[in-house]
Structure formats: structure tokens, C-alpha cells
């Protein structure tokens, strides 16, 4: 067991840190959360800067440890979050890289890396959220096209996306996990309507997408027809395995800021508050160690991250909510003022035990796939 880094990794960290120190002050001001075109431009501008500096590929072909260092350093320096490029860089990109044809990789991967094209995720449906395999959006073959009809929901970045990683049912007669295909759908196609949804945090964070006989070329299918479920599992393992590294670093920073605020406003003298913050320190330290453990494991096995990501996600999503609940205890009545820091974060943290598979679904995955308990209802 070793927590030290190689000379090469240390050098990467130093170089990255120096570059961040130079470029971050040159970034424009962050757009407001409701300004999606502004957010897209800002996030893509940042991706372009990373690309030009040679860091654009880091999510894809750097070693897991190098990626860990990248996420740790960018978060510590306060660099922009991956933002509107989340789906392209962390879901669709890795999936196309793993499962796409050479032509598909050539068509779709470079624009993602350069920050030229933004992707959104068309997986969930009103009747198929956590039970994803129940999805009903259908794609009928018509010559060289699929004709797609149905609707998707919880689609982040849909208004500004160029492409959608879309799951469709291509064989309605097959058992529900079979008969699904993975398509890259151009968001400019005729028949697509996007209706933004307002979240409980007050902003339009995601959207409903209605599909009315949208034509998608058969050549846009990644993987075999009716093999989309397997392709999707590849995507989801990326999401659960590596998506939260930067956020753990961010939570540790917030926790430090909370302690400082508690000392300033006198709440630190309350042993209950103090001990609660101490316990959260243990929590996020351990989650960071678990991250290092999982990354080392991925590096040793050389493969796609495994279901161990579910273990991490279960604990992290709750810890994040506890962190912002603690923030509310530190702030007292000010925790009800939307102008105060951490209040919006507290609201958005409520999604963490729901998004990307609810905690209940994750617990089923851990129980059935890791502990080997029988499938049941």
C-alpha cells in the first residue's frame, strides 16, 4: 500500500498547477445559472483552453492517477467545473471511444475535446427513470434512417446541446433489457421540442425533450442494433466511477470554509456543531481515500471502473447532503436566505441521492452484484 506519487506524476502536478495559476485570472466572469447560452460559451471556452494547453484528453487517455491529480488540482485552484461538457467528456465520449467505429470516433470525438460540440443525455423517460430498461421511446427502421418518437426527461443542457446520446427501443417484442439501441441524435433535427424544467432550486437545470418522428441515420448507432443496454452499462460505469472526484475535493474545501465561518460567528463554541464538522472531516477524508483506492484498483486492473463506484456514490451523495445541512446549522436563520453562500448548494444537493440512479437502486446493485443476494422485488 503506497500513497506516494511517481516523479513523473509530481512533475505533471507541478506543471498543471503553474499553468492554472497563469490562466485562471484571465477567465471571464461566470455567467448566471439560468443563462444557458452563456454557460455553454463559458464551459466550451474553458475546454478549448485545456485542449490548447494539452490537457483536453485528460479524461480519456491519461492514467487513472494522472486524471485524479488533474481533477484534484483543477478543483483546488477553483477552475471551472466540466459543466456543459459533462456528457460529452464523461459519458458519450468514453462510450464512443470504447464502442464506436473508427469513423464514429473521428466524427464525434475531436469536437468534444476542442469544446466545439456539446452533448446531452437522452436516457431517462417519464416512466423510465431508475428503471431505465423500461424506456419506451421507439425507433422504427425506414431505409437508412431510424424514425424516433417518444419523450425524454431530466435532460441537462438540452437547449444548448448539439448531440444527444439517445437510448431507443428498436425491438419492442424483445425482453426489456434487449431490444434497446444507442444512437447519436443531432439536436438540430426536425421534430425535437425542448421544454426547460424548473428545479426546486429555482433554476432551469434540465429539460423535457419531445421527439416526434425524428429521423436519425442508422450510421449514428453506436454498437450493434438491440445491444444498447450493454453499451449503456459501459457509459454508466464511467459515470459512477470517476464523476465525483473533483466534487470530493470541493466538499473538503467547503468544510474548511464552514469551520472558519463557525469560528467567526461564534457557532464553533457549540460542541455539537464542532463535533459535527469534525465527523464530516472524517467522512470526506475517507471518501478521498476510497477514491484513491478505486483509482489504484482501476490502474492495476487496467479496465473500466466497476460496480465499486456504486459504493462510493451511495456514501458520497449522503455525505454531501449532510455537509450542506451542517452549513445550515452554522448559518442559523441566514440559511433561509437565498443570497447567502451554501444555500443554493444545499438545495441542489438534494438531487444527489436521486440522479444517476437513486440510493435505493444503488443499494440493490451493491446487494445483488457485489454481495450476491438474490434478485427480488
Amino acid at each position, binding site marked *: 500500500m503506497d500513497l506516494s506519487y511517481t516523479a513523473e506524476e509530481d512533475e505533471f502536478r507541478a506543471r498543471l498547477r503553474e499553468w492554472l495559476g497563469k490562466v485562471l485570472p484571465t477567465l471571464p466572469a461566470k455567467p448566471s445559472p439560468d443563462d444557458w447560452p452563456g454557460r455553454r460559451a463559458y464551459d466550451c471556452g474553458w475546454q478549448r483552453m485545456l485542449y490548447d494547453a494539452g490537457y483536453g484528453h485528460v479524461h480519456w487517455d491519461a492514467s487513472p492517477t494522472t486524471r485524479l491529480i488533474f481533477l484534484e488540482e483543477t478543483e483546488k485552484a477553483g477552475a471551472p467545473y466540466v459543466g456543459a461538457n459533462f456528457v460529452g467528456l464523461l459519458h458519450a465520449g468514453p462510450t464512443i471511444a470504447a464502442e464506436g467505429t473508427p469513423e464514429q470516433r473521428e466524427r464525434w470525438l475531436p469536437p468534444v475535446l476542442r469544446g466545439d460540440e456539446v452533448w446531452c443525455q437522452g436516457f431517462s423517460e417519464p416512466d423510465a427513470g431508475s428503471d431505465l430498461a423500461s424506456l419506451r421511446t421507439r425507433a422504427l427502421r425506414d431505409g437508412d434512417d431510424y424514425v424516433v418518437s417518444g419523450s425524454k426527461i431530466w435532460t441537462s443542457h438540452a437547449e444548448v446541446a448539439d448531440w444527444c446520446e439517445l437510448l431507443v427501443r428498436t425491438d419492442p417484442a424483445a425482453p426489456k433489457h434487449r431490444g434497446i439501441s444507442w444512437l447519436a441524435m443531432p439536436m438540430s433535427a426536425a421534430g425535437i421540442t425542448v421544454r426547460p424544467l424548473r428545479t426546486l432550486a429555482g433554476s432551469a437545470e434540465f429539460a423535457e425533450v419531445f421527439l416526434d418522428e425524428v429521423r436519425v441515420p442508422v450510421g449514428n448507432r453506436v454498437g450493434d442494433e438491440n445491444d444498447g443496454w450493454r453499451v449503456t452499462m459501459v457509459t454508466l460505469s464511467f459515470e459512477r466511477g470517476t464523476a465525483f472526484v473533483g466534487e470530493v475535493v470541493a466538499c473538503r474545501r467547503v468544510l474548511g470554509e464552514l469551520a472558519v465561518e463557525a469560528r467567526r460567528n461564534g457557532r464553533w463554541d457549540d460542541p455539537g456543531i464542532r463535533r459535527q464538522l469534525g465527523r464530516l472531516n472524517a467522512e470526506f477524508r475517507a471518501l478521498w481515500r476510497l477514491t484513491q483506492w478505486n483509482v489504484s484498483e482501476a490502474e492495476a486492473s487496467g479496465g473500466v471502473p466497476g460496480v*465499486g463506484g456504486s*459504493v462510493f456514490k451511495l456514501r458520497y451523495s449522503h455525505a454531501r447532503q449532510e455537509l450542506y445541512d451542517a452549513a445550515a446549522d452554522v448559518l442559523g436563520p441566514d440559511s433561509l436566505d437565498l443570497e447567502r453562500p451554501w444555500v443554493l448548494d444545499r438545495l441542489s444537493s438534494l438531487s444527489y441521492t436521486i440522479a444517476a440512479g437513486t440510493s435505493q437502486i444503488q443499494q440493490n446493485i451493491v446487494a445483488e452484484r457485489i454481495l450476491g443476494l438474490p434478485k427480488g422485488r
Partner: protein
Amino acid sequence: MRFQLTGEQKALRAAVRGVVGRWSGAGRWGLVAQFPAPLIDRGFWGALGELGVFSLRLPEVDGGAGLGLPEAVLVFEELGWALVPGPLVATHLAAGVVPGAATGETVVAAADGSLVEWLDEADVVLPGAEGAVALRSVDPLTPLHRVPAAARTDPVAVLLTAAEQLGTAARVCALAVQHARTREQFGQAIGGFQAVKHLCARSLVRVEVARAAVYAAAVTGDAVDIAAARLLADEAALRGARDCLQVHGGMGFTWESEVHLHLKRAWVRARRGGGDTESEEVLAADLLAQAG
């Protein structure tokens, strides 16, 4: 960074598991029958000594294996898993200080927090046990005395206690899963019911988080990391044993099932020095120290 077990570390863990597994398999709960005055099995204590449980961190010139905290933590996790009784941490810390401790010839007890485990059975008590009063111990496999003044706790003792708790946490998770797979109710294995499934899944999550914290603290030896490891390992053992008992249903509430022994041992260890309040204060102070 290669935060995974090395081949040697896996081999060490397997060797310890073999020896303590044979013991706990054979004479298993024989000591329970001796309640209320359990005895230390001196032969087995010597076997632990031979295995290097007490001497493994001593330099080779002093008859040890010259290993470090990561190896010690793996060994104590196995001891916790097998519910090995006796003042294991105290004797390990006395190796190289008290003659015979390293080899397992001498049993060493120590005041830790405001309690002494195994006082009457020990050959040596550190730093002494003035005014010790016997308790009727809740754990039938750990006799306890209370001492008037709380002793200072060595961070290594806090870490090794965390490792034992981790072993217990892993064991009770495995016992719960085993029962959930085999026990049938309403015509199916109870592990097929989500309510039971989720108890088991949450138990595993606590084990995995605690394990990452305990192993990392063993690598860094840092006092704040140790405090974090202890908090999470205590939680994983205490909560896990409760949930294991719940999964066992009525059987879990009986003396015949071993579940209560794991829970009671976890309770005893949680009262050793460096427990929740102390660790939380260490971790809280660290937040301000980091902020400057």
C-alpha cells in the same frame, strides 16, 4: 501511487487468517462456556506470538519482522474478524518493552481510556492499575476493570483498535449476507426482500469506507487520519453488528447465535481511548489548522 495490497501483504493476511481461522473454528466459543471467568488460551497466545502478531513491527535484529503499520493493521483486522479474545493491542505495543511480550509468552494488559481489559489474566499491567474495580463485563469474552484516572492513549493503539473494529464490521456484514441468502420466509430467501437487501448493502458501504480510511491512516501514520479511521471503523462495527442482529431476527437475539458477541466486543473497543468525542475534536481542530 499504488494504494492496493502488495503480494507480501496479501500473503501475510492469508497466513494470519489460516491460523486464527483454525483456532476459532475448532475451540470456537469454548471460552464462552467459562463465563463469567474467561481464560486466555496460553497455547493459542503462543501461536499468535509465533505468527508474529506481537513482534511484527520490531526490527529484525530484535527478533521482529521489521514490518510497519500497514501490515499491523491487516493483522489486527483478521484478529477482529475472528473475534480473537485477549489484550491483543496492549501486548503488541509492549513487544520490545516487556520481556516475553513479543513471543506471546507474556500476556500484557494496559489501562486504555478508563478501562483495563483482562487485568486478572495478565502477567504484566501497564502502566499499572491502582484502584481498579472489577465490572461485570457485558462482553463474556472480555473481563473488564474500571480505573479511576483515564490513561493517555497511544495513537497506534487507536489505529489498531480501528483495525479490529474493521474486522468486526466485515465479519458481521458477511454473517448478515450469509443468513440473508439462506434463510427462507414467505417462500423465498429473505435476501430477496429490498428491506433486508438494503441493510446488507449499507453495511458493506460502511465497511468499504472504513477500510479505505484505516489503510490510509496506516500508510501515513498521521494523527488526524487515525482519528478519522477510528470514527468510521467504530461506526461500521457498531452499526453493522446491530444490522446483522436485525437481519438474523429472533435468532439474532439469542445467546446461541454469535452475533451478540461481535456487537458486545465492538462496544468494548469503542470505549477505549480515542473514541468518538476525542476523535471528532481532533478532526475539528484540524479544519481550523488547515484554514490557518
